[in-house]
């Protein structure tokens, strides 16, 4: 019984961590989306710089664009992975809850 309860609590903690992770990813996704939107409105000759350490280095527009696109792709992949994990944990949590209920009856 206490074993099951401990397991339940652990899964619950895992789930909370995952949800926090998911929120962080969402923030990153939004930030990167804003950047791509901004890239869209740029004129062709507008120079772009990237902050590397404490220095602004000039980068080509194409390079910057592909870089952010790649990042978006990566973040979306991470979000999918995270969502899947959340679903799994939720299923496990439901299963454990049912078992707990059965035992307390």
């Amino acid at each position, binding site marked *: 019984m206490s074993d099951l309860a401990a397991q339940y609590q652990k899964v619950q903690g895992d789930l909370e961590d995952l949800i926090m992770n998911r929120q962080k990813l969402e923030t990153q996704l939004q*930030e*990167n989306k*804003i*950047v791509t939107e*901004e890239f869209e409105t*740029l004129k062709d000759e*507008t*120079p*772009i*710089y*990237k*902050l*590397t350490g404490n220095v*602004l280095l000039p980068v080509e527009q194409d390079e*910057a664009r592909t870089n*952010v696109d790649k*990042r978006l792709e990566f973040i979306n992949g991470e979000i999918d992975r995270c969502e899947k994990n959340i679903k799994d944990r939720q299923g496990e949590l439901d299963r454990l809850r049912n078992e707990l209920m059965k035992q307390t009856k």
Partner: protein
Amino acid sequence: MSQKIDLTQLNPEQLNAVKQQFDQELNHFTQSLQALIVAKNKFSECVSDIKTVSEEANKNQTLLIPASASLYIPGHIKDNTKFMVDIGTGYYVEKDAKDAITFYEKKIEKLNNESTQIQNIIKDKSQSSLAIESQIRQLAVRQHEAAKQEAVAAAK
């Protein structure tokens, strides 16, 4: 998320739990609103800075460049119509004064929209929180009365 719960069907412990949850959410939204306001002020400052620097009178204006928090180097503005704007995730873009101002004003407008949205949510949540509180109080009063009546009945 927004399923309807009949408050009168809940017992005091459940009511307390619901109230706690609402207060937590309320806290979260108030913090978000605060963060939005801070961000908005920062952007407004940027706009007024751009306006000042790009004034005709400030061409070739001398200024002190902070090399560290305690060391400043004298310099002068070479071109007061070009600005480097941080568009996020470490990317900076060169913009002229007009574009830079529209960029920041767009951001401010977006933040304003989000602020009103959050304000509405906060209004809703605090109303619900108040409703729950009054329900808790009513329940407490009723329990108190019931206990009194029981005592009276026992005394007879």
